[in-house]
Every structure is written in C-alpha cells, then in structure tokens.
C-alpha cells in the first residue's frame, strides 16, 4: 500500500505545483494593467505606483509567485483588485452555492443514472433497456445550457411553477432553496446521469456474467438480492471513479448553469473576474478549483486501489 501511496501522493503534489505555476504565469499573460483597471483611466503615475506597491506588483515575478504560494498556504489569497475585498471571503461566499448545486446535481445523476443503468442491464433486449439507452443518448446529445433554456421556457414562463433564477441558501429556507436549485441541478446532472448510466450498465452486465454471481444464484438467493447485494456493489466502484473523472466537466457545467440561472457561485465569480482582469480573484478561484479537483481524484484513486488493486485507473473527460 505504502509503495503505491507515496508516489501517488508525490504525483499529486507535482501536479498541484505545476498548476499553480501555469495559473500564475497565465494570469500574467492577460492583457491590460490591473493597477490601471483599479485606479481608473484618470489616475496619475504616482497613484498607479502606489497601487502596484500595495499589491506587490512591483516585485520580480518569482518573488510574487513564492509570496503568493506562501500566503495561500496560510489561507490568504490576496485581495480582489476590483473590490478590494479579500479573495478568500468572496470564494467563501460563492463556494456554498456551487457546492450545493454540485451535490444536488450529483444526487440527481446518481439516482437517474444508476437506476436506469441497473434496469438496462437486468432487462436486456427489452423495451426497458431500449428506453434507458435512448434517454442516455439524449443526455449526451442535448447541450445542458439549451436544456436549461427550455426548462426556463416551460417551467418558468409557459407554466410558471418554478423560479427562473436566483439562489436561496438551504439553511435559510430549505423548501425555497430546493425550488430554486431543482432546475439548475437537473440541467447540470443530466449529462452526468447519461455517463453514469452507460458505465453502470456495462459494469452490471459484466458483473452479472461472473462466477461469483452465478454462485450466489446457485446458493438460492433471489434475483433482487443477487442484483443489489452482489452485482451492483461491485459496479459501484466503477461509478465512483466515473464521477471523480467527470468532476472537471461538472465544474465547467456549473459555470454555464450558474450563468443561465443567475446563481452567485464560482462560475459567475470566475467569468466576472476574467472580464474585469481581477488577477488575485482568477488565481484564487482556479487554485481552489484545481486543489479540490486534484484532491478528489487522489481520494478516488486511493479508494479504488484499496477496493480493487488489480485495476489500473484510466479514463476520459471533456
């Protein structure tokens, strides 16, 4: 275990360092002067110099980088060059929105995806498999942002049963929060549900053909016990990995979904930050996103190797 754990951990650290360097350099390649953006067009050279000094922009780039990483490790991500507020605070406000959206979407995807996948695998060659496959294919083919637009058109304009936009915290009003997040979560979860369904189906088909399932049947267990207790449990390993691997897609999807439903989450934060050239904010958001991504992938990998050491991890995401 240790022989696997330590190199894998090191790999994650190296990936993380590379990401911070790339973000840091990439952000500096953005055109426009953040000091000028903050001070306004009418500013004097002295004002600009003062702003550069207060944000450390007059230091050499490697010094700026090391300082940034050092501060970040202490939870200080700098201050927004647009609002002057600490970046960590803005992220702290946006993170719960995106997290709620993501968790809700994953729940939707798991419920629909695993359910449909199991049905499609157990009732092969029947109308159930055909229906489940068709829905999965649609899930992969319908752009989620268009699904969102159609959702607003149908459920907020034609038959106004759900709000078209806005966010309510689950702690403030659970029911209203549910109503506001239902459409965004279904929209964001639909694509993931299709992937989960396909993977569950093929993993289940494979599992149902193995010796241990045949043994369980021979012992006289009922069909349901075999499917849920034996085959499904094994297939869930694959599903866990897929959800981990689709995380990047989930984050991208969240950006679009938040834009359509006007949710004050990470997506809005990063798009606003890029268009106002808010360096510290872009760095902060990407850093947190990348850290979460690397961390969760590491966790999934480790879980995977604990559960089934034979399996070599691999997969694709867009």
């Amino acid at each position, binding site marked *: 275990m240790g022989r696997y754990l330590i190199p894998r951990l090191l790999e994650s650290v190296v990936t993380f360092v590379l990401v911070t360097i790339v973000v840091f350099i990439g952000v500096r390649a953005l055109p426009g002067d953040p000091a000028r953006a903050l001070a306004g067009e009418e500013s004097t050279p002295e004002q600009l110099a003062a702003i550069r000094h207060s944000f450390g922009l007059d230091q050499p780039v490697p010094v700026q980088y090391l300082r940034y990483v050092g501060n970040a490790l202490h939870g200080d991500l700098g201050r927004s060059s647009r609002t002057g507020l600490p970046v960590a605070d803005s992220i702290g406000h946006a993170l719960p929105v995106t997290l709620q959206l993501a968790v809700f979407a994953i729940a939707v995807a798991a419920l629909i995806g695993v359910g449909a996948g199991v049905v499609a695998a157990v009732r092969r060659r029947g109308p159930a498999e055909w229906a489940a496959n068709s829905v999965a294919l649609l899930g992969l083919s319908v752009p989620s942002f268009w699904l969102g637009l159609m959702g607003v058109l149908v459920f907020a304009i034609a038959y106004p049963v759900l709000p078209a936009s806005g966010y309510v915290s689950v702690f403030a009003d659970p029911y209203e929060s549910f109503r506001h997040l239902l459409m965004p979560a279904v929209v964001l979860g639909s694509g993931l549900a299709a992937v989960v369904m396909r993977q569950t189906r093929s993993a289940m088909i494979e599992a149902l053909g193995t010796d241990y399932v045949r043994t369980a049947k021979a012992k006289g267990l009922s069909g349901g016990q075999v499917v849920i207790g034996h085959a499904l449990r094994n297939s869930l390993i694959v599903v866990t990995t897929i959800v981990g691997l689709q995380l990047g897609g989930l984050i991208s999807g969240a950006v679009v979904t938040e834009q359509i439903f006007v949710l004050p989450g990470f997506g809005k934060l990063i798009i606003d930050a890029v268009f106002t050239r808010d360096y510290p904010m872009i760095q902060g958001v990407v850093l947190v996103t990348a850290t979460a991504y690397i961390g969760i992938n590491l966790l999934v990998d480790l879980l995977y190797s604990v559960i089934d050491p034979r399996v070599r991890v691999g997969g694709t995401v*867009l």
Partner: protein
Amino acid sequence: MTTLDVVTVDSGAETVVPGRRRALRRLLRNPLAVTGLVIVTLAVLAAVLANLVAPYPPDRTDFAAVLQPPTGAHWFGTDELGRDQLSRVLFGLRSSLLVAVLAIVVSLAVGVPLGLAAGFYRIADRVVSRFADTLLAFPFLVFAVGLAAILGPSLFTATTAIGVAGIPALIRVTRGETLRLRGLDFVSGAVADGASDPVLLWRHILPNAVNTLIVQATVAAPAAIIGEAVLSFLGLGIRPPAPSLGIMLSAAQPLFRQGPWLAVIPGICIVVVTLSLNLLGDGLRDALDPREAPR
C-alpha cells in the same frame, strides 16, 4: 482527417485489424448508425453548400417581417431584425462544424504523438501523463475563459480551447492502445526482426490503433459542437454578427416571451446533429470492435 487515411497498408496488421470492409458492412446493417450517417452527411452538405441552399443571405434584415413564427416564406421564422432563421441556422451549422473539425485535428495532432511516446517510452510516460493530468486539472470552461481573455473571443479561440480540452483524452486512449499493442506477438516479432522504434510506431502500432482513434474522434465531435455552442453562448467564441448556433441561442434569451421559436429551433438543430454523431459513433465502435457489440 487525412492523417487517418495513410495507414491501411500494413501487412503485419491484418491479424489485429478486422477487415475494414467487413466493418463497413456491419455498420451498414445497423439501422441507427445508418440514420446517423445519413443525417450527418446531409448536415455537412447543407453547411458546406450553405450559400447555395439557404433561401436568404444570413444577415439580410427585413423590418416588414420582424419576429415572425415559422411560415411558408420563413420555415424557421425570423428574429427581431427580420433575419431568416433557416439561413442563419445553415450558416451557423457551418461555423459549428468548422470549429469541431479543426478542434479535433488539433487534439489528434498533439494527442496522438504524445500518446504514442507515453505508451512506448517509460520516461516519456512520466512527463506526458503529468502533462495530461495538468490539462485535466483545468476545467474546460475555466481554460476557455482565460484564453478568451488573453486572445479575445473568436473562432480561433474557441477552436484552440476545444482542441486543447480534447488532448488529454486522446493521449490516454493512444497511450493505452500503444501499451496493449506493444505486448502483442507481431510487435515482438518486428522487434526481433530488428525494426527501429520509428518503424515500430509508424508501421506496426499506429495502424492498429487507428480504429480506436476513429471511434475516439467520433466521440469527440459532438462534444466539440456543444463546446462551440457553449462558448459562443457565453460570448467567448465566435462573435456576432457572424452566425453561430450558440449566438442565436444567447440572442434568443431576452426574447423568450415574444419569440420562443428563436430559442427552440437552433437548439433542436444542435441536438439532431450531435445525436446523429453519437449514433454513428456507437455504430462505428460496434462495427470496428465486435466484442463490444450488444448481441
């Protein structure tokens, strides 16, 4: 896709590649795949021949026919400037397909050589796999947003963002195929024959990986089309007044009540094309790899 056509001539390959002709016959027996193939072909023709097929120039305004629902004169209706939506959809499809094809070429051109190297050389594997992981750590849209901020939103930006986003998947797929093929007898035989590394990669491994790469490229196509629509929708890709399906959808958003067809029809067009590509991709995978076929 000229890179893919070069490689069908290898003699040592026949044991692994099922006959392409047999695969084609299998594909044509699959009604869903044939439907997909026909629709994709029609869509490509309509997009390429847009200036011949489209009933109106895509940017011609007609203030006598503003915000008309679909009629005999305007099959897909008109927008708030009286522009014919069918013509705009056809030209928009052209942009979408152009971006998708170029993006896949970018992904192939970078991903395949890196994947071959990673699967063949242990040292390269360390570096290349780390590179792929780093790319994957950037959510596609975050990367695209950054790129649009540096280069400005354009067709080039959209193509680059989508192409780069597709690289890690191609690296992994090519690497996996290379690892698998490297262990097979005909490659060991070629090594025993004294074949050099470039010969092994180019004449023995790549030709046998082509099937998988074709499937992967077909899988990437719908994602690329949706990617273009998303970027244009957010204002990060193709800029108005150039027609793009994503731009049409984002322009339709404020007109939801007056002209719902403006949001419905371009979306349906995207779905029809991506669905057909997915059907074709599934059919190709089943035809090229009979083990996967659901029968």
